[in-house]
């Protein structure tokens, strides 16, 4: 398996404040990889380290098997990047900008470029400064895809895109993957990448918490349960059961989320009269939040200890 991105203990401090710490990230070639985390978690810092725009305090990074600093130009020939805060030469028209960037790159598939312009419905006659955020983003995406790079690094690529264009963007990513190319997408919105990515890495407060395949994440899915009892039940009977969290009892109804086996909960419930039991599989978003809620000691212990309040707090944090 070839490796598209590989970092080892990648660390960046800005003065004394943290950028990222000890990031060990491996992204295999031919995948769509989602790099997830709330704003300020270190996603852009990591990406800018990969692009050699900033230099690491410690650790190292390789892209397409090459050193990000020493082999910079060789990497640039095979990698496209669309920054989150995309700034382009505002005095140029879209067409002029694509011409300029194409010339800098040296090789552009002209037919493919025209196809991209058509598919993303980009008006290339307007000056960049008159474009909306979403339209600017489209210029950036056309520029990134038109060189058919081996690796696409896209920092929050879909911000401002309307749903139709977003779908077209997803098709483009899938096509790229189909051709064996790698797409690295950062996002703070899980639903945006959930159905697109093969694997996701979760970064929080500068540390990479976990890298999982979407399938594995879903296997570890939490279930939300609601059990209606025939009578009031004591909360003490359920508190501390393995895998049970966010436990509340409201009159005769128990609500909780369970990770892993339901066995203990079901057996305990059976001591009382159970009238109804509802189970809802949680969204990936909630799994994601469970990671956050578990804090730094994550990996094995997402299920224990972390209360609902912590997860709730992180929800606000992520949305901020």
């Amino acid at each position, binding site marked *: 398996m070839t490796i598209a991105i590989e970092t080892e203990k990648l660390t960046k401090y800005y003065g004394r404040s943290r950028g990222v710490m000890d990031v060990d990230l491996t992204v295999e070639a031919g995948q769509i990889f989602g790099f997830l985390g709330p704003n300020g978690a270190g996603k852009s810092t990591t990406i800018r380290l990969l692009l050699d725009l900033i230099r690491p305090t410690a650790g190292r990074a390789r892209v397409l098997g090459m050193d990000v600093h020493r082999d910079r*130009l060789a990497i640039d020939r095979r990698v496209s990047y669309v920054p989150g805060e995309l700034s*382009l030469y505002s005095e140029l028209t879209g067409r002029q900008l694509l011409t300029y960037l194409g010339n800098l790159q040296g090789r552009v598939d002209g037919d493919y470029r025209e196809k991209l312009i058509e598919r993303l419905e980009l008006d290339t006659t307007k000056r960049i400064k008159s474009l909306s955020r979403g339209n600017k983003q489209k210029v950036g995406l056309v520029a990134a895809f038109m060189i058919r790079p081996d690796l696409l690094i896209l920092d929050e690529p879909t911000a401002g895109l309307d749903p139709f264009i977003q779908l077209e963007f997803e098709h483009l990513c899938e096509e790229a993957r189909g051709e064996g190319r790698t797409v690295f997408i950062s996002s703070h919105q899980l639903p945006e990448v959930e159905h697109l990515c093969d694997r996701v890495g979760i970064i929080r407060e500068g540390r990479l918490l976990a890298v999982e395949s979407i399938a594995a994440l879903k296997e570890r899915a939490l279930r939300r349960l609601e059990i209606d009892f025939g009578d009031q039940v004591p909360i003490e009977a359920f508190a501390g059961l393995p895998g049970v969290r966010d436990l509340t009892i409201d009159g005769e109804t128990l609500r909780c989320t369970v990770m892993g086996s339901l066995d203990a909960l079901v057996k305990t419930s059976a001591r009382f009269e159970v009238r109804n039991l509802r189970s809802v599989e949680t969204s990936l978003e909630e799994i994601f939040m469970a990671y956050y809620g578990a804090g730094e000691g994550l990996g094995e212990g997402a299920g224990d200890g972390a209360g609902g309040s912590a997860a709730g707090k992180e929800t606000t944090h992520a949305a901020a």
Partner: protein
Amino acid sequence: MLLRNVFWKTVRDLRWPTFWVGLGMGAMTGYFALLYPTYSKLFDLDSMLAKMGPAAKLLGAGGDASSLIGFLHIELFSMILPALIVAFAAGMASGFTAGEESRGTIDVLLSYPVSRRRIVLEKSAAVFLACLVAAAAVWAFAMAGAAASSTALPPDRLAEALAMLVLLGLAFGAIALAISAATGNRAAAIGVAVAVMVVMYLVDALAAVVDGLNTIRPLSLFRYYLGNDPLRNGLSFSDAAVLAAVAAVFLVTSLVAFERRDLAA
């Protein structure tokens, strides 16, 4: 063609500023060349200067105004043209790295196979070209003005003086570039370059009046720019070499500083 690479893109970016600065400096010089005979008839310029005494020297008006060369030296080459070319070159040079950084375009630019060093070099070459074009405009306007007023103006001396002017611009442009490349702060780059120019100008002008300043006079780039009175005596190679060396040293400093730095997001 103007979108072919960083050099031509920069030329494209600078085309209007260069046009206006060239036109402005040229029109001013042409105007003086055209009206010199009228001025010199109306006023006895030399005796006016004599009455001003040391004050004239402070204003850069040391010398004699009995010829167009002397007149241009006093009126334009000693203060106004250098101030303009320095502001022009420093303004352009500071915009390269700090300007692209503050606009955020440097991230995109550097994700293409163009090295940081090459960006600085190609952009510097574009500034060199812009200064040459502006100087050529001055030359053309001045020669036209002198021809129209039938005044003698040696074309080679004028060209040599303008070459010194361009070198002065490049030296200060390189200073601004170095600050901009090292800090990413465009305002600081222009501010410091212009401040240094003002101090150097004053040191050179005051040294003509105050003996004590003569020891530090060699530190002023104006000493080399004007020292040999290029409009009258032609270009001094050693003076030109000093200005070129200063430009080269700061250009190299910029390359090193920009290569090493974390770029602003």
